[in-house]
C-alpha cells in the first residue's frame, strides 16, 4: 500500500517559486490500477516522482507499506526504488544496448549474475511478445515495441508497483490499446499495483479502477472509476 500524506513540492528558482504540489493526499491499495489525470503543468510528473523520491517533497510524507521513504538512507532508498519500477513517455532505453541488454540492465544493477540475467530477460521478452527482437537496438524498434521493452525492463526486478508517467502518450491509439492490455494483464496475472498518470481520459477509462484528478497541484476529486462517469460522458 502506498500512502501520500499532505505532500507538497515547491520549486524555488532564483526569483520565482512554483508550487507544483499543494498538500496532496492519496491512498493506493495493493492491486489497484490508480489513474491520476490532469492538465499539462498540473504537477502529475512531480507527484509520481515524489513516490520514488526522484523528487523530494518539500513537506508531507510518502509511506510505502508503512515505511516513510523520505527518511530512508541512500542505500535503503535505492533498494525501495528497485521495487517501484518506472515507465516513461519517451521510453528512456539505453541506446547503445540491445533489447535484451536493456532488460537485463536493472538486474546487473542489483548484482544478478549475467547468466541468470539473460535467462530472466529472455523470459520477459517472451512475455511482452518481442522474443524475435532480442538483438535489435532501440533505434530499430517502433515506439510501441520500445515501450514493450521498457515494460519488460521494469518487470525484471520483480517490482511490487509500476509507476507510469504518460507511458502511452507518444503512441498511436491502436498501440496504446495494446500496451494498456499488456499492463492490465500484468496487473491481473502478476498482482502488480499500477499508478499511472496521464492526460488522456481514454486511458483512465480503459484500465483504471480508481482515479484522482489533479488540478494546479491539488487533488480536486478522487475515488472509484464509477464516480467519474459524468467526466467520461462529457468527453465522449
Amino acid at each position, binding site marked *: 500500500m502506498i500512502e501520500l500524506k499532505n505532500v507538497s513540492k515547491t520549486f524555488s528558482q532564483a526569483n520565482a517559486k512554483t508550487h507544483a504540489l499543494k498538500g496532496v493526499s492519496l491512498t493506493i491499495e495493493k492491486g489497484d490500477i490508480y489513474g491520476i489525470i490532469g492538465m499539462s503543468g498540473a504537477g502529475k510528473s512531480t507527484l509520481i516522482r515524489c513516490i*520514488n523520491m*526522484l523528487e523530494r517533497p518539500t513537506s508531507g510524507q510518502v509511506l510505502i507499506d508503512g515505511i516513510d521513504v523520505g527518511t530512508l538512507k541512500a542505500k535503503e532508498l535505492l533498494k525501495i526504488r*528497485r521495487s517501484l519500477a518506472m515507465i516513461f513517455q519517451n521510453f528512456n532505453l*539505453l541506446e*547503445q544496448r540491445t533489447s535484451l541488454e536493456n532488460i537485463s540492465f536493472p538486474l546487473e544493477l542489483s548484482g544478478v549474475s549475467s547468466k541468470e540475467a539473460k535467462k530472466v530477460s529472455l523470459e520477459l521478452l517472451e512475455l511482452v511478445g518481442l522474443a524475435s527482437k532480442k538483438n535489435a537496438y532501440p*533505434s530499430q524498434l517502433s515506439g510501441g515495441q520500445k515501450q514493450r521493452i521498457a515494460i519488460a525492463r521494469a518487470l525484471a526486478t520483480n517490482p511490487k508497483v509500476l509507476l507510469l508517467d504518460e507511458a502511452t502518450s507518444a503512441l498511436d491509439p491502436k498501440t496504446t490499446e495494446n500496451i494498456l492490455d499488456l499492463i492490465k494483464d500484468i496487473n491481473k496475472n502478476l498482482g502488480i499495483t499500477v499508478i499511472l498518470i496521464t492526460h488522456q481520459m481514454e486511458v483512465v477509462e480503459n484500465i483504471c479502477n480508481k482515479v484522482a484528478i489533479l488540478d494546479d497541484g491539488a487533488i480536486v476529486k478522487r475515488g472509484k472509476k464509477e464516480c467519474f462517469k459524468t467526466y467520461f460522458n462529457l468527453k465522449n
Partner: protein
Amino acid sequence: MFQDIFQSEKLIEALVIVKTEFPLAIFETLYVTIVSTAFAIIIGLPLGVFLATGDKQGILPLPKGILKGLNTLINLLRSVPFLILMIMVIPITRHIVGTSVGTTASIVPLVIASAPFVARLFESSFREINPDIIEAAQSMGATPLQIIWKVLIPESIPSLISNGTIAITTILGYSAMSGIIGGGGLGKIAINYGYYRYKTLVMIFAVILLVLMVIAFQLLGDYLAKKSDKRFTA
C-alpha cells in the same frame, strides 16, 4: 624561390634526407602522439566525469571548492599557449623523465597541455547524454558509480571516440611544435631543415606527412565512432 626548389639536385638531396631521416621521425611522431594521447585520456576521462557530474544537482556532487578549483586549473592550463607551457614545465619534465630534451621528454608538456583539453571534450560528451536516461537508471536504484560506468560512459562511446579523435589530431600538431625545444619527430625535421637550414623541400615533405597523418587519424576515428554507434543502425 620555387624555381630553386625543384632544381633536380635539390630534389635529390631532399629525397636522400627523406630516406635516411624520415622513418625514425615518423616513428617518433607516432610514438609521442599515441603515448601522449593515452596519458591525456587516462587523466582527462576521470576529470571529464567529475566536471560533468560534480555540480550540486549532478550525479556525483563534489565539494564546491574542489569543482571550482578543478575548473580554474583547467581554464588556466588551457589558456597558456603551448609554446610557453612547454618551457614553463621544463623543471617538471626534468623531474619525471630525468632530462628536458628529447622525444620522450616532450611527452610531459604534451600531456600537461592536452589532459585539460581532453577533460573538457569528454565533459561535453557526457553532457550530451539525455538526462531522462540517467533518471531512468536512478529510478531503478542505480548508484552514482553504476550510472557513470553503466550509463554515462557506455552511452557516450561514439561521442568519446569523436572527441578523442579531435584530441589525437591536436596532439599530433602540438607534438610537431615540440621540435623547437628538442622534441623529435617530423616537427623537428621541418624546423631544422626548413627554418635553420633553408631546405624548404624537406620541410614541405615533413608537413605533407604530418597532414596525411592527421587525415589518417581523422578517417580512422570517424570510422570507429560510426561503427560503435548503435543509434543509426537501421
